[in-house]
């Protein structure tokens, strides 16, 4: 098998795999499956990057998406009112709008693929894609990328500050203590540790327990 034919076979494998797994994202009824089908789709795209000679971008895409999809699973589980996210749930809703948007997006991309004039610029075997990318990042486009980098960093620091236990609006645990089940502070949950410390004496506890 010669190399161009092999490249063609691999391209169609990656492309078909990418589209198939993207379709599976919306057929899955589990958040974990949906997220990792999307990851599989990205791995297909990364494979096409490799075929184009952009090794670094391909591997970095897999590296970033492995982390991002896992974090997406965890966040989806946290946001959905679904115990540990283990119950099945559907990934499709607002059918009419999404069908319309999907058809429009497909037509737009198909028109682009058919009518756009793509340049035929084969890359030489000797070109050092990673070195060129590094020169671009730290040369001509340095200001753009550094600005984006600083913006992202400040966003991350802001998010950490908002989520931090010692946030500027006080203790993050403050609103999260369990409600009292019985009156007079009997049967408080373990989250109420600061409040429990304020209890004057152990004897008092015994007294309450006696009543309860």
């Amino acid at each position, binding site marked *: *098998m010669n*190399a161009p034919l*092999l490249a063609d076979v691999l391209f169609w494998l990656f492309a078909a795999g990418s589209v198939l797994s993207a379709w599976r994202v919306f057929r899955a009824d*589990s958040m*974990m*499956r949906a997220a*990792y089908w999307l*990851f599989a789709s990205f791995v297909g795209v990364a494979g096409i990057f490799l075929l184009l000679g952009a*090794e*670094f971008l391909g*591997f*970095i895409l*897999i*590296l970033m998406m*492995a*982390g991002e*999809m*896992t*974090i997406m*699973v*965890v966040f989806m589980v946290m946001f959905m009112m679904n115990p*540990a996210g*283990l119950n099945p749930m559907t990934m499709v809703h607002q059918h009419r709008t999404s069908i319309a948007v999907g058809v429009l997006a497909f037509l737009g991309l198909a028109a682009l693929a058919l009518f756009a004039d793509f340049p035929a610029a084969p890359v030489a075997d000797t070109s*050092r*894609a*990673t070195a060129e990318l590094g020169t671009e990042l730290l040369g001509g486009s340095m200001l753009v990328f550094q600005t984006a980098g600083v913006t992202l960093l400040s966003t991350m620091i802001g998010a950490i500050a908002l989520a931090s236990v010692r946030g500027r609006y006080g203790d993050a645990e403050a609103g999260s203590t369990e409600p009292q089940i019985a009156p007079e502070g009997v049967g408080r949950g373990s989250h109420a540790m600061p409040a429990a410390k304020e209890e004057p004496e152990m004897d008092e506890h015994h007294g309450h327990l006696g009543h309860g």
Partner: protein
Amino acid sequence: MSPVTRAVLGVVGLGGSLAVLIYLAAVLDRVIGHRVAQQPLRWSAALALPAREAARLVLQQRSRTERSDAEAWALAPALLAAAAAASVAVIPFGPAAAVADVDAGLALYVAAIALVMVAVFLHGWSPNSVYPLIGAYRFVAVTLSFQVPLALVLLATALPAESLSVSAIVQAQDGLWNVVRQPLGLPIFLATGLGAAFWGPLALPDADDLAGGTRAEVSGVPLLLWRAAQLAVLVSIAAMSAAAFLGGWRGPWLPGVVWLGLKTLAVLVVLLLAGHLLARVRQESFVVFGWVVLIPLALVDVFLSGILLL
């Protein structure tokens, strides 16, 4: 050679040497465990032990759980093994001789280590059971704390080589190994490597306090595969330590492959010893340690390596 022949040869060679190294790692683990417990084991017995255990697991009944995600559960050990194999593929065993001698070899290695997280998460999520799920979440919580310093100290080794190719990194250690040139590198890589292989002190997703964590519900062949794949990740960490910090295939008299094997085994012994001697670290304190100590130290390593080159 045609690309297909090369690919077949590469896969067979990689699989074979990885299988041998996994078995050796299992034997060494038993030997070290018995030495630490002051009950020395005869080598003949030690050599047979992993095979006996494997045979027992092959014959063992597979446990099932209610409403598990069977496909993802079956995929997890395969994905872990594939990630380990892909990461080992970039390690050169001679001048410009690796199964996958790619330009961005370090990026491939780090991406493969990131796939370990996906495999562990699938393994913990799929059984639909409490302890495995906690193990999975725990691994997601600590992953970034070891992956970032691991990637940073590896990047520092790429600076003197002026290339992300692992072959070039070994070539650049002509005369002076990176373990001397970048003294912070190897200790940080080994500490974070234990996290990547979730081994010993950093066996957080599969910890004993979670009744085995993600493997609490696994038995039989899937358990055997999972443990072998985990050892493969450990072997990959040892092999990368040898290549990136200990001069790889460089050494006098003996052929390069032998030197790489000896160095890999030496690092493997250190990692296995750590598994038997060090206590398990709690995930909270490890995350703090990772972000407050390991990542700044790794950045210092990168800066120092850069300054040395100016």
